[in-house]
């Protein structure tokens, strides 16, 4: 496996995101495999903004933290990255700017500088210095110039002058001829897509027929709302910004009750405010689909960083007892497919289904195969009903026929305990029956689960993981025969039969949290003894980090 990591380092407001996206997309469209991530502060201008691009010839799903090339637009943000330099890291900066010296870093670096600003000025657009750098890097990878040219035309469409000067800047960048060695990548024709977790989730929701979304803005959950907003006119989606998260979840329950696939998106703190709503969906047996994009907590925590801290909180969300379905996608492709499945499961079992994302997943673009749209997942399980319709009819499976208001049946639902018709009751025999009815669904639900990903289960050490840590775990385990893994995307419920396969093995869970939440969950469902290592500084786990930490803990 060949790979190469490029970092763009600067401040928020310097346009790094635009240029990073153009760089990533150009490389991708030229046939490279790409994985990106972002490290940024909770502010609008200034602070640190690092956009990293990992280039490889087969798809990878995690970042290598040490970069090979760093393009520095700001001295201070580059200095804060010194720990990620290695011996051969090349630093590029604008020779017209204040720059990082050996004195600053304390070690020798491979430094290159070019008068980006001057070149941009010569091209007729002083603000195009980033485009010069873009051209220089793309030339290094021998990316066909049409590709970025086309992007520039799209981005500045309508502004002919700007396009012209930017194309000029691009070309001058191409001609700079950096003398940097890069690996000899194979680039083939392929059927890949470049998608990030936000897009994967948003596309999945649209594919699933979601037509109503309500949310209150909260990083990093806002992206999915923005994505659906951007498609609202095209597909006839109503996106409502709520006054608070409580309103958001209740709106989505209302929309779903009335018959429309609906989605609410948030992050941990907002999810905290939706607990009573989850319990409401459970009691009224209204399908509820939620996105919780995790960030480090407690409380406000670190708004722009990543974590896997909400697992047990989400799994146990809502007062009272009821079935729920929780998924944690590994990749943007997964995000698409599991979002579709979440809508399906929510409808089929009339329960809350929660999609657990992370900041690193939503903010990272990866090269993925085409997400598979599953027609079956469009099934709504809505009946017409009639005169004698009973919304909470007791059935074998625990699932009652669901009608929506406006049709032939009168539909009655209640957050109090209720009888089969939906009327409030204090009859304790009916109560008991209703608890059993709701809980019966667990059986069907467990039957819907796909087995976790398994790799090399004969190895003496089995890593356990869930969600977007998969890329790092897979990368670490691949090629070692002393390590295998089991990795979950459907994290609740858990099929306890896994016990048979794992019993007696040394199990170490790798998680983006301190306490080892999945280890604890798996233990409670299976009795298996699961150790754990955790990263909780706000950065995603990487293959290197796993290696280092397992060594430190004496596990390998």
């Amino acid at each position, binding site marked *: 496996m060949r790979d190469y990591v490029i970092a763009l380092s600067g401040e928020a407001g310097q346009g790094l995101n635009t240029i990073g996206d153009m760089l990533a997309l150009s490389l991708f469209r030229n046939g490279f495999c790409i994985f990106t991530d972002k490290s940024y502060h909770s502010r609008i201008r200034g602070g640190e903004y690092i956009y990293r691009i990992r280039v490889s010839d087969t798809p990878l799903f995690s970042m290598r933290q040490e970069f090979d090339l760093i393009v520095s637009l700001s001295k201070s943000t580059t200095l804060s990255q010194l720990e990620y330099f290695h011996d051969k890291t090349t630093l590029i900066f604008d020779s017209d700017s204040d720059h990082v010296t050996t004195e600053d870093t304390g070690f020798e670096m491979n430094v290159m500088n070019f008068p980006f600003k001057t070149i941009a000025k010569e091209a007729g657009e002083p603000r195009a210095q980033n485009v010069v750098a873009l051209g220089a890097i793309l030339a290094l990878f021998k990316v066909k110039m049409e590709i970025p040219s086309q992007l520039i035309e799209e981005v500045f469409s309508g502004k002919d002058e700007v396009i012209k000067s930017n194309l000029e800047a691009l070309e001058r960048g191409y001609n700079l001829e950096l003398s940097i060695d890069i690996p000899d990548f194979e680039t083939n024709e392929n059927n890949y897509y470049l998608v990030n977790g936000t897009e994967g989730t948003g596309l999945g929701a649209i594919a699933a027929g979601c037509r109503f979304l309500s949310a209150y803005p909260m990083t990093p959950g806002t992206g999915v709302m923005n994505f659906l907003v951007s498609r609202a006119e095209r597909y006839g989606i109503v996106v409502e910004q709520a006054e608070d998260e*409580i309103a958001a979840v209740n709106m989505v329950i209302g929309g779903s009750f009335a018959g429309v696939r609906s989605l609410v998106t948030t992050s941990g703190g907002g999810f905290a405010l939706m607990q009573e709503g989850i319990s409401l969906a459970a009691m009224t047996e209204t399908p509820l689909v939620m996105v919780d994009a995790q960030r480090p907590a407690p409380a406000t925590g670190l708004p722009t960083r990543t974590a896997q801290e909400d697992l047990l909180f989400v799994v146990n969300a809502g007062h009272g007892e009821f079935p729920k379905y929780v998924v944690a996608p590994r990749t943007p492709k997964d995000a698409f497919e599991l979002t579709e499945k979440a809508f399906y499961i929510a409808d089929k079992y009339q329960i809350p289904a929660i999609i657990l994302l992370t900041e690193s997943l939503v903010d990272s673009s990866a090269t993925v195969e085409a997400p598979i749209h599953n027609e079956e997942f469009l099934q709504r399980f809505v009946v017409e009903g009639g005169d004698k319709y009973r919304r909470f009819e007791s059935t074998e499976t625990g699932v009652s026929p669901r009608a929506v208001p406006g049709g032939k049946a009168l539909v*009655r639902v209640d957050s109090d305990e209720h009888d089969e018709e939906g009327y409030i009751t204090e009859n304790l025999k009916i109560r008991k029956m209703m608890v059993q009815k709701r809980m019966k669904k667990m059986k069907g639900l467990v039957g819907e689960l796909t087995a976790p990903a398994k790799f090399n289960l004969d190895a003496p050490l089995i890593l356990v993981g869930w969600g977007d840590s998969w890329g790092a775990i897979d990368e670490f385990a691949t090629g070692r025969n002393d390590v295998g893994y089991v990795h979950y995307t459907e994290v609740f419920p858990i099929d306890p039969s896994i016990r048979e396969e794992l019993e007696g093995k040394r199990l170490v869970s790798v998680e983006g949290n301190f306490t080892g939440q999945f280890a604890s969950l798996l233990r409670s469902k299976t009795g298996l003894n699961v150790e754990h290592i955790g990263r909780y500084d706000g950065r995603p786990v990487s293959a290197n980090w796993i290696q280092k930490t397992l060594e430190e803990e004496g596990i390998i």
Partner: protein
Amino acid sequence: MSFLREVDPAWCPGCGNFPLRMNLASTLEEMGVDKSRFVMVTGIGQAAKMPHYLDVNFFNGLHGRSIPVAFAIKAVNPELTVIVESGDGDMYGEGGNHFIHGIRRNFDVTVLIHDNQIYGLTKGQGSPTTRKGQKTSVQLQGVINEPLNPLALAITMDASFVGRTFIGDKEHFNKVVSAAINHKGFSVVDIMQPCVTFNKVNTFKYYKEKLYDVSEADSSYDPTDKANAFKRALEWDDKIPMGIIYVNDKPTYHELHSVLKKGVVLAKEKTAIDISAELKAFR
């Protein structure tokens, strides 16, 4: 078509909710509301039990959270007539934020608040509309908070219809509530409803004596004059205004919303989206 369900409501004998229920059912009947296209959304409280005693579609949700539920039902299915039924605690207390922001959306809904100026179901605590000085099961020394004025608040937020009525005046109830339902936009009706068990101050007699209809009292009363309506809404101690207090005929949410103004009924749309075209952009 009767809107009454044959059932024995769990309210205290003499509760103002009994006449309220009868008034409401007959108003709906007289208006010829289509039952299959009618949905009642409630929170929790004595008022919120109403749909269990009627024969209607209903969503009896969480305490204080009826407005957002009602909003979304209406958003995805504009063909439904949506009514919210709530208490003073439910709507102005726990639900206060949704009340003010619901009004801002001006979606077409009628919000009926059974305002008994007390928390009934939880046994007599002061509610946002309990007057200063009144002693309750928690405010043993009397309430010290400034009471919330529902009409003034609704006018301030520019609800497009603001009214008040009384359970003890069937005709008036019918007039105000049917006007509210017929009105396109967010309609608020504060309904004075005695709680015979926990509120010994705001009794049937109390309301009967103090309530007067603004347009009966002053035939030139102009409910579209906002500042004047606000001034009226401030009245309480001697005389309490009721009737149609404020009206602002303005475009509704659906009329302004770029997607909904095309008349789409999301709840009836079945079109699956061809995602492959959309996916192409990610190649």
